[in-house]
């Protein structure tokens, strides 16, 4: 079974990524119990989540090993759509302060 001789090292190869992802998850829990403001905590957690997601996409999903054209087709479009969704925040803050016609 010549093929099987080639397999088996991938787990070892990706163990560093695995441990970094676990470390990110535990760091998030640690930060959640520190006394940050909600906005500050959100910023920290989102930053760490994006880092974890990038690691997963680039290495577990092998996007780093694909042609750059695939990355350029998928990722900027996704970021653009997600950024466009941010326009809801002014309205949610307006509702929070119950100012129906606030500027």
């Amino acid at each position, binding site marked *: 079974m010549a093929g099987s001789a080639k397999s088996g090292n*991938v787990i070892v190869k990706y163990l560093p990524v695995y441990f970094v992802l676990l470390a990110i998850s535990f760091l998030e*829990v640690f930060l959640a119990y520190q006394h940050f403001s909600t906005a500050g905590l959100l910023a920290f957690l989102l930053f760490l989540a994006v880092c974890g997601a990038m690691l997963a996409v680039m290495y577990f*999903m092998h996007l780093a090993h694909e042609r750059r054209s*695939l990355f350029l087709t998928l990722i900027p479009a996704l970021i653009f*759509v*997600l950024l466009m*969704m941010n326009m809801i*925040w002014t309205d949610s803050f307006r509702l929070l302060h119950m100012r129906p016609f606030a500027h």
Partner: protein
Amino acid sequence: MSETEAAMQGHGAMLEASPYAIPSRKLTMWLFILSDAVTFGAILFGYGYLRTASNDWPTPFKFNPSILNVMIMTVVLITSSLTMLGAVDAAKAGDKPKATRFLWSTILLGVIFAGLHLREWFSMIDEGVRLFQNPWGSPLFGASFFSITGLHMLHVVTGVVAIAVVSRLFTRGRLTPGHVETMGLYWHFVDLVWMFVVPLVYLLNISR
């Protein structure tokens, strides 16, 4: 037949090289993942909207059992991504028994994750959380919690079933290693979404 003649007869796509150099099934999975990421993005933004607009948003998650349970679920899901990598690698190397073992390890971890998730749900339901009511504050908490975690769990359960089918058909020789790899892309995406669900839904709402 020249390339121009072939293109005029509708065979142009056969002559044109793929700009991404990947099989069409893999590209299709990437496009599905892109659309699914937008779906989860929209539902998480919607949750953020509700949370920001409510001044009595509850923060019910205690370290034990909720956050501890979530940490175990995270370890289980990330480990399942690792076993899926092993499955893809073994499948590409032509080692079917090893690929099947890894695939079933992934299935087992997925089932454990779903079981832990159900335990979390039943714990919340026991405390009085329903889709549109809860004992603590904004009634929309339950709707957003069950919608987001429910959509994710639907992906996990679908993935477990799909991996079982792929494993069986791959063992019988009816599917190729490429199919296993495409299945792996989906499973890693499920893992990736969880990385956003945990901080936004659980860690921002811990009980102090």
